[in-house]
């Protein structure tokens, strides 16, 4: 069983189900390799509690129906699209920009609901650093998905670095697994995503000075301080960093669709300030 090797090699030989792979592989493969169903489902969110335990492979799965194991023809829309809530319309490719921002980072927190002895965690676990004089938390990393977690003595944990919500949830569960293996009665409460960062390229240079003049109340462009224009969109509440090269970074989202919506809002504006 690969579980015991999780301590030595917390990664295990699991290829975490990514968004893309969920379309091709059934999730049961993951469930076999790394059984994360041990964690009692006391989440307030509905992700894991919907699916029954045998099917639960730690895959982030809000409102997914029972037939989710098979590839749903509806979901073949496009890579990186939101597949969990079938009620939310997937943004059609044909309309507007045709460019989909890629998620680069997701920050989430989870409560392990038990006080932790950081020193023992740091001494026993691999890939853990603990420097109480610098920062009062253990910094633990796993290789698959490539993520970093800050584990605090209160039992709360921050997980960063994942590229999708599913991977973030999986990574958080892996970290919780590691902590559990070290002897603490870890639970998995209140998993919540706090921030999502996406980036994309509009593929044409942009006149930032023009954009600043027109959208002064939303934009801040101080080339001495930062080479990009910082655009604070009101609805949805997202901060975009727009660069001369045409690259755009969007951050501050709680949900993936906010990133998409913000980009769809800014794209026509940017087209108006294209450099000739």
């Amino acid at each position: 069983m690969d579980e015991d090797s999780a301590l030595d090699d917390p990664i295990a030989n699991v290829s975490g189900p990514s968004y893309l792979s969920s379309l091709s592989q059934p999730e049961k493969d993951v469930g076999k390799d790394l059984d994360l169903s041990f964690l009692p489902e006391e989440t307030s969110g509905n992700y894991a509690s919907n699916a029954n335990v045998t099917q639960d492979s730690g895959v982030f799965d809000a409102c997914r129906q029972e037939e989710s194991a098979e590839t749903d023809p509806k979901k073949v829309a496009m890579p990186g699209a939101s597949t969990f809530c079938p009620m939310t319309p997937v943004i059609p490719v044909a309309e507007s920009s045709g460019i989909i921002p890629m998620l680069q980072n997701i920050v989430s927190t989870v409560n392990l609901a038990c006080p932790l002895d950081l020193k023992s965690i740091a001494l026993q676990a691999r890939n853990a650093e603990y420097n109480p004089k610098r920062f009062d938390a253990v910094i633990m990393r796993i290789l698959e998905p490539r993520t970093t977690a800050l584990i605090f003595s209160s039992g709360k944990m921050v997980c960063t670095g994942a590229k999708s919500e599913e991977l973030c949830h999986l990574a958080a569960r892996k970290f919780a697994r590691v902590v559990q293996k070290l002897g603490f009665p870890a639970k998995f409460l209140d998993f919540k995503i706090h921030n999502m960062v996406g980036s994309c390229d509009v593929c044409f240079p942009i006149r930032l000075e023009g954009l600043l003049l027109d959208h002064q109340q939303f934009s801040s462009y101080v080339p001495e301080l930062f080479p990009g224009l910082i655009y604070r969109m009101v609805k949805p509440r997202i901060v975009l960093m727009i660069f001369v090269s045409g690259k755009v970074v969007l951050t501050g989202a709680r949900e993936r669709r906010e990133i998409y919506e913000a980009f769809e809002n800014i794209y026509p504006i940017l087209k108006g300030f294209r450099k000739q």
Partner: protein
Amino acid sequence: MASTGRGDGLALPKVQCPNRPDAMLVEDYRAGPECGLVVGDRMIDVGSEWRTFTNEKATKDPSRVGDAQNPLLNGGDLTTMISKGTGAASFDEFGNSKYQNRRTMSSSDRAMLNAFKEITTMADRINLPRNITDRTNKLFKQVYEQKSLKGRANDAIASACLYIACRQEGVPRTFKEICAVSRISKKEIGRCFKLILKALETSVDLITTGDFMSRFCSNLGLPKQVQMAATYIARNAVEQDLVPGRSPISVAAAAIYMASQASAEKKTQKEIGDIAGVADVTIRQSYRLIYPRAADLFPPDFKFDTPVDKLPQL
């Protein structure tokens, strides 16, 4: 000592000429310029105190009426401060001075007065004219009264106000120049700058390369021809979009480098970098971008000491 003063002061009743209520009143001890009608004769002079210069024995002039009033910036400076005594009578039996309590006056404005002092000191270090200092004081007062940035260090807010005032007066200073005269880091000044713009709901114009040419070139000791050439080069480089995304300071520094290298007064990148507050690798990067088009960037009437093809290629 004639001073023109408007007759309508702060409080009622208004002093007006009975014949022409709209006319501006002139405060003149000799004779007025127009009809000569005396409207009021007991005026309170709010200028600085009158000094009596006599050649008699140098007794201390006892007419102390205090500093000039600055009603724009203080909450009405009508406080009295008791200074430390000089004679023997001002000390009680233990050697402590009587009337110790001279500190807690105008406490509400104490921080503001301190900040004004700091602003004056900073502006003085880089020889900024009085109008910029006044504008900075006004901005600081506005920010201070609004209290939205109350938690921030007053020095940081003062430095940011100084930066904004320089921009508003049309003579921008770089953040690094403000840093040089302030104890606050560039990062903190930048943060306060953005917060103040938001709090006061103002905006500032974008900086251009030409704003810094005269200052940088004179600090380097470059002649007017070179300065004009550098201004021309930088403006064209930005117009032709040869340097997208580069800070205007870096482009200005690279233009100065190119112009000075083509003239008799050659300056090294390090020297220019020191004056402009730009790293010499940054100058090199921007220079590489403008070098290919050097021939059409120079002004047509420029006298080359070093021809364009002999310009250093980095």
